């Protein structure tokens, strides 16, 4: 298990590879790895965003993330988890967060990964301040974590154009 909040730029694929290397001895026991990577968008609520500052509550944020991972371990049959979250000044395209979950089976890996990112977004003390062409603003709420299901229509691959 690894949880970190860092003011340095993060490279999610390198962090995942390093974590994979650390858990080399356990790799064969896990048939599933679920990964979520959050990246800064260049737009929000219809406005272009030039940069963003991410703030956290040192001490509380790390403790909350540790607790989330512990709860996920208790609730799902997962072998390992990685959560690294960025703070400080970000530019569009910069990674904000990486969540990785390793489990024997995909259902547990996917469910735990989904839970970790949604709980992180709704309860972990992080705040975003956006820089727009005409000033700054605090982000007041997150985008929803659910999508509307497309209408049922059978196998999309079989549909004619």
């Amino acid at each position, binding site marked *: 298990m690894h949880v970190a909040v860092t003011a340095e730029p993060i490279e999610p694929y390198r962090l995942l590879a390093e974590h994979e290397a650390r858990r080399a001895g356990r790799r064969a026991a896990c048939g599933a790895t679920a990964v979520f990577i959050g990246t800064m968008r260049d737009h929000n609520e219809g406005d272009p965003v030039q940069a963003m500052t991410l703030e956290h*509550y040192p001490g509380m944020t790390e403790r909350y993330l540790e607790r989330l991972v512990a709860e996920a371990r208790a609730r799902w049959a997962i072998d390992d988890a990685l959560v690294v979250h960025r703070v400080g000044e970000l530019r569009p395209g910069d990674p904000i967060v990486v969540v990785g979950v390793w489990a024997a089976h995909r259902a547990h890996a996917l469910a735990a990964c989904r839970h970790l990112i949604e709980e992180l977004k709704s*309860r972990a003390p*992080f*705040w*975003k*301040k956006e820089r727009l062409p005409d000033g700054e603003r605090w*982000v007041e*709420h997150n985008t929803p974590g659910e999508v509307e299901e497309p209408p049922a229509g059978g196998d999309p691959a079989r549909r004619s154009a």
Partner: protein
Amino acid sequence: MPVRVRFFASLRERMGQEEVQVRVDGPLTVRELWALATDGRELPPNLLTAVNLEHAELDWTVQDGDEVAFFPPVTGG
């Protein structure tokens, strides 16, 4: 020992300060502490609070020496 009251993000900017020390005379609720720390300012809607680095409700009892934080809704990830 006084209670350390901290403000984060947009709330810190609105308050014009990161933290204040509040001398308390016996236990009081987070809600009562807000009133003391902000000279009776109205509670912002959707205000979140933490006591000693744990999420807490407004009716939670604050003790001498605690650290209490007030902050707006979170927007990580």
